[in-house]
C-alpha cells in the first residue's frame, strides 16, 4: 500500500514536471501566432471581462492600500515638490521665451503635424499587471476594434509608458519601459546627443540612457525625451518630444556615456493610459512629405533625415 502511494506520488510529480517542460519548450519555440499563444489569447478574451469587473470592484481596496502608502510618503513628496515648483517657476520664465522661438521654427517646417493629437490617442483602462520583476507588462481593455495595433506607443499624462506587443479583440498587452525587451531612441532635453533608453536590470525604478557621446553633459533633473525613433527591427516611430523621465545620475564609462533616468510615468500605479493608434507609416510619410517640402539643396537622404527632423521637432 505504501509502495503504491509513493509510486503514484512520484509518477504525478514526474508527469507535472514533464508537462511543464513540454509547455515551456513548445511555447518558447513557436512563433507569436502559434497554437499556445492562441490558447493564451483566447483565455485572455474569456477572462478579460472578469478581470475588468474585478478590477473595478477591487479598486476601493487598492485605493485604501494606496492611501496608506501615500500617507507615509506624503511629507517627503511635499518637500520635494516645493523644490520642484520653485525650479519649474524659474524654468517657466526661460521656457516662455524659448517657446516663442520654437513655435516659429515648428511653423516654418510644419512640424506641428507630428503632435501627439495627430496619432489619434485612444484612452484605455489598465485591467491587469504582472507582479514580478521579470515581466513588466500590463493588460489594457482596448483592442483591435478600437484601432490598437502592435507597436503602438502608450503614454499617460506623465509621459511615455511603453508600447503595445499583443492585441486581441477585448484587450491588449503593453510592455512597459522597464521591460527587458524595450529600447527607445531618446535624447536629453538640452542636448542634441541621442542614445537608447533601456531598463536597468533588476531595478524597476530606473532606466539607462546609453550610448551617448562621451563628451555629453547631463545635469541631474534634466528631462529625457523621445527623439522620434525606436531601436527595434520594425523601426516604427514614437512621436518626438514625449517625456520619458529625468536624469538622476551619470555613470563613469570609457567609450560611451550612460546616465540613470527615473521614469516620469509612475509605472507602479497605472490606471488610465492612452494608446497612440495612428499608423507608424503615416508618421513616416508625414516626415517624407515634410522632407520633400524642404528647399532645394537642403533635402537630405530619407532615413537619417527623417530621424534628424523628428529630433528637431522634439525640441519644439
Amino acid at each position: 500500500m505504501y509502495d503504491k502511494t509513493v509510486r503514484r506520488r512520484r509518477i504525478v510529480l514526474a508527469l507535472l514536471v514533464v508537462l511543464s517542460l513540454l509547455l515551456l519548450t513548445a511555447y518558447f519555440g513557436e512563433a507569436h501566432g502559434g497554437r499556445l499563444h492562441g490558447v493564451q489569447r483566447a483565455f485572455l478574451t474569456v477572462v478579460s471581462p472578469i478581470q475588468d469587473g474585478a478590477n473595478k470592484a477591487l479598486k476601493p481596496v487598492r485605493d485604501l492600500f494606496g492611501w496608506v502608502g501615500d500617507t507615509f510618503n506624503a511629507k517627503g513628496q511635499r518637500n520635494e515638490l516645493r523644490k520642484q515648483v520653485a525650479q519649474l517657476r524659474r524654468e517657466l520664465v526661460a521656457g516662455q521665451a524659448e517657446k516663442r522661438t520654437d513655435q516659429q521654427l515648428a511653423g516654418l517646417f510644419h512640424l506641428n503635424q507630428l503632435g501627439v493629437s495627430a496619432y489619434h490617442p485612444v484612452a484605455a483602462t489598465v485591467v491587469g499587471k504582472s507582479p514580478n520583476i521579470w515581466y513588466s507588462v500590463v493588460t489594457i481593455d482596448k483592442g483591435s476594434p478600437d484601432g490598437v495595433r502592435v507597436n503602438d506607443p502608450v503614454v499617460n499624462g506623465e509621459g511615455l509608458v511603453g508600447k503595445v506587443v499583443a492585441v486581441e479583440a477585448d484587450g491588449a498587452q503593453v510592455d512597459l519601459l522597464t521591460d527587458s525587451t524595450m529600447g527607445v531612441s531618446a535624447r536629453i532635453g538640452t542636448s542634441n546627443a541621442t542614445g537608447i533608453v533601456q531598463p536597468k536590470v533588476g531595478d524597476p525604478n530606473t532606466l539607462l540612457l546609453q550610448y551617448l557621446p562621451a563628451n555629453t553633459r547631463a545635469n541631474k533633473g534634466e528631462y529625457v525625451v523621445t527623439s522620434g525613433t525606436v531601436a527595434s527591427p520594425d523601426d516604427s516611430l514614437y512621436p518626438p518630444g514625449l517625456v520619458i523621465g529625468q536624469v538622476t545620475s551619470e555613470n563613469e564609462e570609457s567609450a560611451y556615456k550612460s546616465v540613470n533616468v527615473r521614469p516620469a510615468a509612475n509605472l507602479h500605479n497605472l490606471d488610465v493610459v492612452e494608446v497612440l493608434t495612428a499608423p507608424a507609416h503615416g508618421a513616416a510619410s508625414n516626415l517624407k512629405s515634410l522632407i520633400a517640402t524642404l528647399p532645394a539643396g537642403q533635402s537630405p537622404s530619407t532615413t537619417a533625415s527623417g530621424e534628424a527632423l523628428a529630433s528637431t521637432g522634439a525640441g519644439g
Partner: protein
Amino acid sequence: MSSSTGSAGLIARVAALAVVVVFFQIGVVSEVPVFGINVDLSPLLVAFVGLLCGSMLGAVAGFAVGLLVDLALLQTLGLTSLIFTLIGYWSGRLRELRDPQAALTPLLVGAAAAAVSLVGYSLMEFLLGVDAPVSFELLRQIVLGVVVNTVVAVPMYAIVRRVLIGALPEDPRRRRRRRAYTTGGLSPLSRA
C-alpha cells in the same frame, strides 16, 4: 462524509482559493508596491496548500496556479507551472516527512517559497536567454522580495488554513498524538 466526497470538497476549495487569490493578486496586490516590491501571493498559496494537504495536491495545485498565472498574464507558458509544482511538492513533502508544528513554520515555509520562486524565475530567465547581467540591484530586489513575502506569509497561511480546514482529512499521527495527551498516556501531568 465519504472519503471521495471529502477530497472533492478539498479540491473544490483549493480551486476556488486559487482563482480568487490569482485575480486578487492581479487586480489589487500587484498595484500596491511595498518598499518598491510587489508582493506575490501565488507561491505562498501553493506552499501552504502543500503544507496543509500534502505533496500530491501541493504539486497539482502548483501546476494549476502556475498555468493560471501564465495564461492570465501572457507570460511564458509552463515557466511558472514548473516552479510552482516544485514548491507545492516540496512543501507537501515537508509535511509528510517532518510534520512541523512550530509557530514559525508558515514564516519559514513562506520565505523559502518566495526565495525559490524569485531565484527560480531569475535562473529560468537566464537559461531562456534574457540578455541581462547579474546586477546588485537584481540581488537586492530578490532579497527584498523574500523579506516582504515572508511578512505576508503568516496572515496568508491563516487565511488558507481557515478556508481549507473544514475539508482536510484528519491526520492519523496527529490524532494519535492528541489521544495520547487527552487519555493521559504521555501527559507529564499523569506522572505527577
